[in-house]
């Protein structure tokens, strides 16, 4: 089974051995790039169909189930849909508004997609299977590259010369900046405990065994569990997924910052968003869910990359489930959640990690309740603060404008 685990690494080594020694690093890099460019957009293509089908099932309708292989009667349960969508977006007319800033409008989708691919390259998708392994600064690379997303959102929104685009971009940037804080602070806990920024090393560190048969994933500790929940919520907001999809709220802003994009550029935005979601899910898996490690020691025979991609599929399905279930937040609720709840909680979580580290020699029965108590008390206090703020809503504008129809009728 060890051979199946390393089959892709062996395949790459075997292929690289064919080229002259001087070109081997280049060939290795090219192979890694090709693998990333093939696998993740492939998952994206399937995700678009699965998402539409699942959302449809949640809403009690069939969803796409017609498109199969062209010129045959094979329908594949609608899984040919992504090819039809891709061809459609390639052949559609590319409309640029007359007043748009053409260069910035053109560059924005690429500023979104290129960093998304780059950030996927540091995620270890299996044992010895990270395309780029920065021993010193892996996680920092991920966040640094992710910073370009905000710039792309701004470029798209500003260059379109459309009020919906600009509003969407402003919302998007405010949201991403706010949620980046809890995101980074919650992953900092893992860096503190693992003592490294290298994602591959963090994944390896979680292959230890505890409680007999369970691998020591970070999520099985108080700080890891709290950190995972904070990271997951912030990741959802960073990738503009549904309870946090205000930047592209269909019912308010047409399509937010990419309202004025059509054809293939629109598809690139779509691709960039999903790749960003895969990358951040991959980092969440690596930081908290044991990376490519199996949950139990007796499941170690399953290849490591299968575990990673299995967890990734789990994340994707979870995000689709959230999208189908939760309504969208209001802007003020969104900001309150980030600054008044998640930021304090992630700071408390840093303290918990310190306590956990200092209490390493204590018995579990003492260490666990202490850390859970340090987390639970601020959680209770903060959520109580939230509840007292939420009173019955008064519809100020609706009530003020009620006499308006009478005056309007009195006019000429």
């Amino acid at each position, binding site marked *: 089974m060890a051979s199946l685990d390393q089959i892709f690494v062996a395949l790459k080594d075997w292929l690289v051995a064919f080229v002259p020694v001087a070109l081997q690093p280049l060939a290795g890099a090219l192979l890694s790039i090709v693998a990333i460019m093939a696998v993740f957009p492939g998952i994206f293509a399937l995700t678009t169909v699965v998402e539409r089908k699942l959302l449809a099932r949640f809403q009690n309708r069939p969803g796409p189930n017609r498109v199969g292989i062209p010129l045959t009667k094979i329908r594949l349960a609608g899984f040919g849909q992504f090819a039809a969508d891709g061809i459609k977006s390639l052949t559609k007319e590319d409309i640029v508004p007359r007043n748009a800033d053409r260069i910035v409008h053109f560059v924005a989708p690429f500023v979104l997609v290129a960093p998304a691919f780059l950030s996927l390259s540091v995620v270890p998708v299996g044992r010895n299977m990270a395309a780029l392994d920065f021993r*010193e600064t892996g996680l920092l690379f991920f*966040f640094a590259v992710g*910073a*370009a997303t905000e710039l792309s959102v701004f470029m798209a929104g500003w260059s379109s010369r459309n009020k919906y685009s600009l509003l969407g971009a402003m919302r998007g940037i405010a949201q991403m900046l706010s949620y980046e804080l809890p995101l980074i602070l919650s992953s900092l806990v893992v860096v503190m405990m693992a003592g490294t920024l290298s994602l591959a090393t963090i994944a390896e560190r979680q292959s230890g065994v505890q409680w007999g048969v369970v691998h020591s994933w970070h999520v099985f500790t108080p700080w890891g569990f709290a950190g995972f929940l904070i990271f997951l919520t912030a990741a959802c907001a960073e990738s503009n997924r549904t309870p946090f999809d205000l930047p592209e709220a269909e019912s308010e802003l047409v399509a937010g910052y990419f309202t004025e994009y059509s054809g293939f550029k629109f598809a690139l935005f779509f691709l960039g968003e999903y790749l960003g979601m895969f990358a951040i899910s991959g980092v969440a898996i690596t930081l908290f869910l044991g990376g490519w490690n199996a949950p139990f020691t007796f499941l170690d025979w399953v290849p490591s990359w299968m575990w990673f991609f299995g967890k990734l599929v789990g994340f994707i399905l979870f995000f689709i489930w959230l999208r189908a279930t939760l309504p969208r937040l209001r802007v003020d609720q969104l900001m309150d959640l980030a600054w008044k709840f998640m930021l304090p909680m992630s700071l408390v979580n840093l303290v918990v990690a310190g306590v956990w580290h200092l209490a390493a020699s204590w018995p579990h029965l003492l260490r666990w309740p202490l850390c859970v108590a340090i987390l639970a008390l601020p959680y209770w206090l903060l959520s109580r603060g939230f509840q007292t703020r939420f009173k019955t809503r008064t519809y100020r504008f609706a009530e003020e404008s009620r006499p308006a129809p009478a005056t309007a009728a009195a006019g000429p």
Partner: protein
Amino acid sequence: MNPIFAILAGVTVGAAVAAMALRNLVHSVLCLTVSLVGLALLYLRLGAEFAGFVQILVYVGAVAILIMFAVLLTRGGEAPPGRIANAPWSGLAVAAAVFAMIAWAIARSPALRGMAKDPAQPPLSVKAIGDKLTGDLVLPLQVVALLLTAALVGGVVIAMSEKETE
């Protein structure tokens, strides 16, 4: 000269010149961002991974966005007609002064002499930087933090007084 260095340096300097020369402020900020990314890539070529990634994280992720917001919230990206600055000399003088200051600091740095002696010095690890920042340099770090907090409070005060006058 190394061709990769030449390309990176050309992009950095060219984008910086464009940032000064372009009339649309948002375009200037975007060119400045390209220049900052070029600088980060130059750091990476020198083997300073940490400095390079922090440069991108801080300058592209935060400072560029901050300048964008400042531009949009004040008077928009449109440049006023006519010449913006009558005397480029004051700007040149400031630039020369800053350059002289930085060059003086670099020339006096003991690190420069140490590097010349020992070219095979291992790259500085992130752990060592962290130890330095929380050990010897903790006071300057706190001073910087205080300064940034003061700037933040100042920003809030300015924003609030604007709201009252409206």
